[in-house]
C-alpha cells in the first residue's frame, strides 16, 4: 500500500474508520446475540451466516482498497 500521497491517506483513513466501526458493531452484535440468545440454534445460524457474508464483503472491499492504494 502506498500511503505517501494525501489522497491515498484520506481514502485509507476513511475506509479504516468506517469499516473499523462497523466491524466492532458486528462483533458486539454477534456477541450479544450468542450471549443473550442463550445459544439457541436460530441465533447461532444467523450469527454464522452473518459472519460469513460480512467477512466475504470485507475481504472484497479490502482487496479493492489495496488496488486503489498501489
Amino acid at each position, binding site marked *: 500500500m502506498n500511503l505517501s500521497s494525501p489522497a491515498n491517506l484520506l481514502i485509507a483513513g476513511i475506509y479504516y474508520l*468506517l469499516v473499523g466501526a462497523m466491524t466492532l458493531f*458486528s462483533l*458486539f*452484535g454477534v456477541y450479544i446475540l450468542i450471549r443473550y440468545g442463550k445459544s439457541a440454534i436460530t441465533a447461532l445460524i444467523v450469527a454464522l451466516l*452473518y459472519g460469513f457474508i*460480512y467477512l466475504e*464483503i470485507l475481504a472484497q*472491499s479490502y482487496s*479493492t482498497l489495496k488496488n486503489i492504494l498501489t
Partner: protein
Amino acid sequence: MTKGITRRLLPSLQEDETIYMVVREHWAHLFLKIVIWMFFAAILILFNRYAIPAVPALGEGTFGQIVTLFTQVYTLFLALSLFLIWVFYYLNIQIITNIRIVDIDQVGLFSHMISELHIDKIEDVTSETHGLFGTIFNYGDVYVQTAGKVERFEFSNVPNPAGIEKMVLDLYEKTHPVKEKS
C-alpha cells in the same frame, strides 16, 4: 417454543411456574423496518444498474475503483443494519407466567435490561392499538402499571394487545380471588 429454550431464556423459572405466553414484536412491525431497509438497498441496486452504465466514468480507472469501494462499504453497512434489526427483534421479549411478567429489553448494542413484575403487584393494565398497520394487523402497545419500583411496564408493538391485556388481568384475578368475590 420448547420448554428447553424457554428455560434457557428464563433460567430463574420455578418448578411451579407455568409460562403462558412469550411475546415478541409483531412481524408486521418488523416487516415495516425491513421495508425501510429495502429502500436503502434499492438505492444501491439502482445505482449499479442505471448510474454506472449511464456514466461510464463511474466505472473506469481509479475513480471507478473508489466507486466500487464505496458500494462495497455501503453493502457492509446494509448487511450490518439488517443483522441489527433482526438482533433487536430477537432479543426483545416479554414472558408472561402465572407468577410474574418478565420484560427483557435490548436497548441498543450496549444496554441489556431485564425487569420483573409480580402479577399480584399489578394496579392497572392498558392496551393500545394505533396507526393504519396496527389496526389492520392487530398489534399495539400494552402498559402495565404497578406499585413497584418500575412504575410502568411497556410492551411495544406486540401482537393482539387486547388479548394480552385480558390474559394479564385474568392472571391477576386468579391471584386475588377474594377481591373478585367482594
